């Protein structure tokens, strides 16, 4: 029987082991690409899970942070010739500061109001990306020069697999650590009762802000990885539909479950590749699958299945 409902490092080990094991398989470039994308999106979803699943704050604006990372790197490298790696390092504190500034007023809101406010923020940012054509290339996007993203002569098709896999494992470790710490308990507490947390001496606003900033930085980091990996970015990657997709990944995989986050990301990265056989009905089937998952596994895939596997006792 599990002693804690709380977090452990087991998922980190499982994921690290899987990354290594998968690399032993004879994968095609395409499969390696899918795996890499899965790692990248998982990083965003893990952050969202911290914010939504643990701290209980909905955000429909994380596409903006993903885009922030992506565009800082893309614009900096394509327009000003800076190194993407430096830009990545620089964009994380920028994202942290941005999240801090907008988070302070916004996080006073709750539930759907918070969702709306973050949606508003995300939409405004996406509008900017679409319309500032001279800077961002507008709706058609911005390309990154191949040479600029080479590091230590990284060229093999596996290199990004390893880089993004490493990022994923590190992020998972950080997440597991923070959850198994006073800060993590703080966040989980405000999810259930801000009032009670307050009279126990927890600065609710700060705890929310911590969760928000961490998840924003994770999303930004993922955005940086994404643009370096793809060497192309369009506002689509930062739009509100993306944000909504991130929320969907988080919920479908399972709120409060790190492995669930990866499963959720996989649903959206990998599943559509299989659905192409349905041609025009692709989208309808994806919708249907979402509905079926939530009807049969209402708590999200991983937590619902885990609950079924738990032993019966009297």
């Amino acid at each position, binding site marked *: 029987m599990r002693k804690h409902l709380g977090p452990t490092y087991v998922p980190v080990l499982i994921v690290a082991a899987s990354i290594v094991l998968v690399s032993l398989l004879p994968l095609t470039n395409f499969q390696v690409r899918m795996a890499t994308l899965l790692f990248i999106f998982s990083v965003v979803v893990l952050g969202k899970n911290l914010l*939504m699943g643990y701290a209980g704050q*909905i955000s429909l604006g994380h596409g903006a942070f993903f885009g922030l990372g992506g565009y800082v790197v893309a614009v900096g490298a394509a327009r000003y010739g800076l190194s993407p790696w430096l830009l990545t390092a620089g964009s994380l504190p920028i994202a942290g500061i941005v999240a801090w500034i907008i988070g302070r*007023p*916004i996080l*006073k*809101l*709750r539930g*759907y*109001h918070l969702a*709306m*406010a973050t*949606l*508003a*923020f995300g*939409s*405004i940012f996406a*509008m900017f990306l679409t*319309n500032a054509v001279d800077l961002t290339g507008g709706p058609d996007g911005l390309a990154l020069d191949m040479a600029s993203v080479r590091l230590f002569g990284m060229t093999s098709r596996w290199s990004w697999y390893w880089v993004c896999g490493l990022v994923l494992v590190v992020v998972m470790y950080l997440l597991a650590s923070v959850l198994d710490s006073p800060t993590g308990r703080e966040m989980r507490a405000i999810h259930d009762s801000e*009032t009670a947390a307050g009279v126990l001496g927890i600065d609710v606003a700060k705890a929310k802000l911590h969760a928000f900033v961490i998840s924003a930085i994770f999303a930004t980091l993922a955005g940086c990885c994404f643009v370096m990996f793809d060497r192309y970015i369009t506002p689509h990657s930062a739009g*509100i*539909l993306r944000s*909504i997709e991130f*929320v*969907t990944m988080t*919920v*479908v995989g399972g*709120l409060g479950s790190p492995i669930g986050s990866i499963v959720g990301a996989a649903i959206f990265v990998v599943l559509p590749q299989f659905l192409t056989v349905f041609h*025009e*009905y*692709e*989208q*309808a*089937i*994806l*919708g*249907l*699958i*979402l*509905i079926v*998952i*939530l*009807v049969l596994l*209402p*708590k*999200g895939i991983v937590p619902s299945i885990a609950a079924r596997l738990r032993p019966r006792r009297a």
Partner: protein
Amino acid sequence: MTTILQLIVSGLTVGAIYALVAVGFTLIYRASGIFNFAQGEFFMLGGMLAGIGVASYGLPYPVAALLACAITVTFGLALFLFGINQARSASPIQLLILTIGASLLARGLASAILGKDFVRLPQLMPWDVWRVGGVVIQTQALVIILGAFLIVSVMGFFLSRALTGKAIVAIAANTVGAQLMGINRVAVVSLCFALSALIGALGGILATPITLTSYDTGVMLAIKGFTGAMLGGTGKPYGPVLGGLLVGLLEAFGAGFISSVYKDALALVVLLLVFALFPQGIFASRSVERV
């Protein structure tokens, strides 16, 4: 002066459409605590089905409209009965995602079956526009505004006077308590979904002559309607209506006076400012939360 009047007319035209979406949202929200992302799809289905009924099948307008409403209401009911009602232990956010699934499903089916072209519908009035002084008013806009007003009045009365209206609030506030009073949750919430779908379908049918509808109309409308509902607050029946109208007006004035590129941003910035002052929306009833 005419410019301002013209902008007001424009804003109200668009705003009335948003208001209808917002009202539909609120109805379901009140009964089940979830925001139905597929609300825009009700709208789309109403408009698409009626339009295609008229254009491709040569049905008379009223028949096509009636059929469109019937199909949309069936979809709304199915969404509740086979989706939301089955996912028993899910939380509102999980149900929100379920409605996103429903929205994808509706959009996917509509694009595959009804096609991806935009559809049209004839105006309800024999003439196109009215010119009052220098101001141009689309007659169909008057129909929409009138329709919205009617729907909202009926709903407002229903929600605040009829016992069923109170049962709706009761179910959302405390499902267990409501069940213990003998309120049939499934029946009442089904009613809300059906009504909400009906409002959506009617809205779609009324608005299509102006907006032209295609399979992907729903998402953007849902977001605008959501904005309206949040801006006005969901506490009072007229809150979402005024919120929707306000979004329309802000967009019109933004486009007219500030920048048409960032006009949508204006509405959102105003929303953020409103939230700073009234975290529950403008027309929400204010009270100290009891602990």
